[in-house]
Structure formats: structure tokens, C-alpha cells
């Protein structure tokens, strides 16, 4: 994946539209999820992810091809999401519903999974932004602590701490919901 990314980057820099398209296809899912972890709202997240891709295109000449492309791109996407969140500071992308985060009634229906997703998103929204980014980049996208440290511009130990605290909160929620699903 690495060398191929580098080849695609080189071809994009040479003006090959299709190569840029391949990079977008390859990282679209990841970029949208990371942006959504920051912003909550899916439309806002897509705007931010798009901003991230176009910003990366502009900065592509600065990309160090000795390093993996994914973390470099995700750093730009995460920053784009943060910028968008700051610009829209007046509202939370996804209003926090405390009844969702807390232990509300457990519906014994097929909508349990959907309800769990809602609660997970609400719980994520409750976390500090950096913690949210750290846990999603680590547990969902599979980046290493060192890579996340580079993306977020914080020490590796801080990343571990952020992931730990985020997990503690989210695992409690998840465990709470596993019982009725059995």
C-alpha cells in the first residue's frame, strides 16, 4: 500500500487526475469517519473531509515520500475538521443528548444496534476533541500511537492516555448495551 501511495502521489503531482481520484477513493472512508468523530454531523464531516483532500492536494509537494501517506493525509483532514468546528463554534455539530449518554431505557427491539450507534456518537461528542480523535484513529483506523502522536502534534504518552480515557468511557457504554442484546 505504501509504495503504491507514493506512486499515486507522484503521478498526481505530474497532473494525473485519475491518480488523485484513486487516492480519494482509498482514503474517503477513513477521512469521513475521522471528520465525523470531530464534527458529529455527517454533512459537516463530508465538507471537512473534502476540504482536507483539497488542502492535501495543494500541499502535496510538501509531502515527504519517505513517510507513510495515510497519517500525513489524516493529519490534514483532522485539522480541517477542527477548523470547521471552530468556525461553527456557535453550535455543537451533534447536540449532546444526556438521556442518550446516560443509562436510559433499553429498547428490546431490532433498533437496538441503531440506538447503540446513536449513543456511541453522543458519548464520543461528550469527549474532548483530542481524545475523540485519538481513540478513533487508534481503534477504528488502526494507526499506531506514534503515528497518532505525529498527526496530533502531541507526545506519544499523551496519546496513550487519551486513548485510555476514551476507551474507559466508551467501553462502559458498550458493556452496558451488550447484556440486553444477548
Amino acid at each position, binding site marked *: 500500500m505504501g509504495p503504491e501511495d507514493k506512486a499515486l502521489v507522484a503521478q498526481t503531482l505530474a497532473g494525473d487526475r485519475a491518480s488523485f481520484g484513486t487516492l480519494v477513493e482509498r482514503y474517503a472512508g477513513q477521512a469521513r469517519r475521522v471528520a465525523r468523530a470531530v464534527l458529529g454531523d*455527517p454533512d459537516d464531516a*463530508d465538507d471537512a473531509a473534502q476540504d482536507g483532500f483539497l488542502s492535501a492536494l495543494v500541499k502535496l509537494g510538501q509531502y515527504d515520500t519517505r513517510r507513510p501517506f495515510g497519517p500525513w493525509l489524516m493529519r490534514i483532514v483532522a485539522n480541517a475538521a477542527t477548523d470547521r468546528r471552530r468556525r461553527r463554534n456557535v453550535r455543537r455539530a451533534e447536540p449532546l443528548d444526556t438521556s442518550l449518554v446516560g443509562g436510559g431505557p433499553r429498547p428490546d427491539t431490532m433498533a437496538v444496534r441503531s440506538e447503540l*450507534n446513536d449513543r456511541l*456518537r453522543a458519548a*464520543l461528542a461528550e469527549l474532548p476533541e483530542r481524545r475523540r480523535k485519538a481513540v*478513533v484513529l487508534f*481503534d477504528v483506523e*488502526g494507526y499506531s500511537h506514534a503515528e497518532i502522536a505525529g498527526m496530533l502534534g502531541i507526545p506519544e504518552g499523551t496519546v496513550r492516555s487519551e486513548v485510555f480515557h476514551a476507551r474507559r468511557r466508551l467501553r462502559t457504554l458498550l458493556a452496558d448495551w451488550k447484556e440486553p442484546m444477548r
Partner: protein
Amino acid sequence: MNESPSFDHRPDPELGAALRAALEPKDNQAAFVARVMAQYDAALERSSVAMFDVLASWFRPGMVAAAAALVVGFLFGRTVLNNRTESIDAALAPIEGPGLAALVTAQDPPDPSVVFTSLVEPQ
């Protein structure tokens, strides 16, 4: 649910899958890709138009400067070739005589031979 130690170095697949499901966009990925590529095309077009505008803005002053350089070069070269000792100021000084008068008072467009005669005549 795994009770992982505080600072587990490994991703938690269960939590990761749950979070992924919660964050996964509902719509088709292709629509998003198409949207980004449309922005790519638009940005490319904007940059092309901007470059054309810049070139166009350079064109007119560039032509004027080139014409001026040609005139000055012609006068300077002529002065050097004729081994004249007059200064360039003299070469560029207002030209007097019948050629100039004819050029200024003529009703019809100037005859190039009159213009060049006025320039070539010894001062």
C-alpha cells in the same frame, strides 16, 4: 468485552467495530468521491483562468515596452554605427527641419520616408 490494561498497545477490535459502525457514512462512497473530484476540476479550471488573466495583463505593457526598446535600440545602434560622437541625448533630442514640420502639419497620414528622412538626416 475485554478488560484491557490501561495502556493497551493493541487496538480493541470490538470497540473499533462498534465505533466504525457508528461513524460510517450511510450514503454511497462513490458520491463523495465524485464530489471531491468535481472540486478538483473546478480548482484546476480556476487556476487556468487565473493564469490566462495574468498573461493577458502582462501582454499590453509588454508590447509597449518591447516597442520602446526597439526604438531606443534603433537610435542607439544608428549612433554607434555612424561613429558619431554625439551623445545619446543628442540622438534623442527633438528633430527640427522640414521633415518634422511636414509630419506635424500634414492632413494625411505621414509618409514613412519623411519620418525616416528626418531621423537619418545629419543633425
